[in-house]
């Protein structure tokens, strides 16, 4: 009984520790998610400098076309709907994405991606939000949110964000500035909690629990009868 209790305590300890950092138990076997770091963590190995990006968005009849701007390494993508810009007589709108040479460390926030500066030659239409996707590495904990700032050394504001494709986080914006993904270092659970989100892992765990219950009970009964 004492052994069982110790195992229970250890399982609870593990659950608490794993909950404090997404994804939890991780032995490093996920398909490598290569990432070009501005400030590579020690375990990153060989690292290349992150790329910048540029887009020229045509304006037809005073309405900017649907377009995406992205860096050459695909680590950040910003997508615009038709008429997303206040074109104001322009025939082309330019968008530039530049990774910062430094890694901002605002108080209470831990960034897991590079910080990027996005500028454009026209302002965004507040009714047509731009879709922003940031990719991150599996060498870092999963980010909880995208953050935005007008000055990288100033205040970073948390944006409403959600997980996208594996190793990406998505948000929308109506203004340009500086963007990076991370999590509040004072709050332990980074990662959105979405129970029953239709992913593979909950199914695996459910199958394991069913196997344990269905196969374990008859085995336990048989052992009890034998003894």
């Amino acid at each position: 009984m004492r052994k069982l209790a110790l195992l229970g305590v250890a399982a609870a300890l593990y659950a608490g520790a794993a909950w404090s950092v997404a994804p939890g138990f991780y032995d490093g076997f996920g398909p490598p998610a290569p990432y070009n770091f501005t400030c590579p963590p020690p375990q990153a190995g060989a690292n290349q400098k992150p790329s910048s990006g540029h887009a020229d968005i045509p304006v037809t009849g005073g309405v900017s076309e649907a377009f995406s701007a992205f860096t050459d390494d695909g680590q950040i993508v910003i997508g615009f709907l038709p008429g997303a810009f206040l074109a104001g007589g322009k025939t082309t709108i330019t968008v530039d994405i530049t990774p910062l040479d430094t890694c901002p460390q605002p108080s209470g926030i831990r960034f897991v991606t590079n910080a990027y500066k996005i500028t454009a030659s026209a302002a965004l239409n507040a009714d047509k939000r731009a879709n922003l996707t940031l990719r991150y590495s599996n060498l870092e904990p999963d980010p909880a949110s995208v953050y935005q700032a007008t000055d990288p050394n100033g205040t970073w504001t948390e944006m409403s964000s959600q997980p996208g494709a594996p190793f990406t986080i998505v948000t929308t914006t109506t203004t340009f500035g500086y963007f990076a993904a991370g999590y509040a270092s004072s709050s332990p659970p980074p990662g959105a909690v979405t129970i029953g989100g239709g992913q593979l892992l909950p199914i695996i765990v459910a199958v394991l629990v069913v196997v344990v219950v269905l196969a374990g009970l008859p085995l336990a009964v048989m052992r009890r009868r034998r003894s």
Partner: protein
Amino acid sequence: MIAAVQARPALRAALVASLVLVLEWSRALVAAQPGFTVVALLLGGIALAAVAIGLPADRLGLGRSRLGLRLIGGCALGAVLLLPAAVRSVTAPLLPAGLAMAAIAVSIGEELAFRGALYAALEDAGGAPLAVLGTTLLWTLAHALSHPPEFLPAVAAAGLLLALWRWACRDLVAPIVGHAIADLAL
């Protein structure tokens, strides 16, 4: 020389601990190099498993008695290890075949080395408490080069859980099965 080492359990435990740490750190450093990941994981897993060569199966916690219960225990451990990520609905893409093989090799190798050979050596040197705490500490240190510091408390807690199972059930089959399931799924 070999007889002298075998006669001193503490010295044997220190040697096994050093060997396992060097193997794990070497594996982590080589695996970080582009193009060497799968090879480093596979060879690292085999090298770690080789640490247990020569030890009788019962000293390692292996055996076919109560095999059904051991396998179910492995499923239960796998479920516990994956539960936080499953609740969080982490997106976990399926592993390619090469990485899946490597994950299984490393899971088996790590369990044979840490909860098998190292556990047995530490148990001989200082009893079960030293074996449980010592394997947990070295398991955590071994992952220091391959994991960001934020992950290490979870690594330590997983090591403690697996070591306690090894002690409580005198079994290594369940930790191997649970570890492999968790590595394959995440």
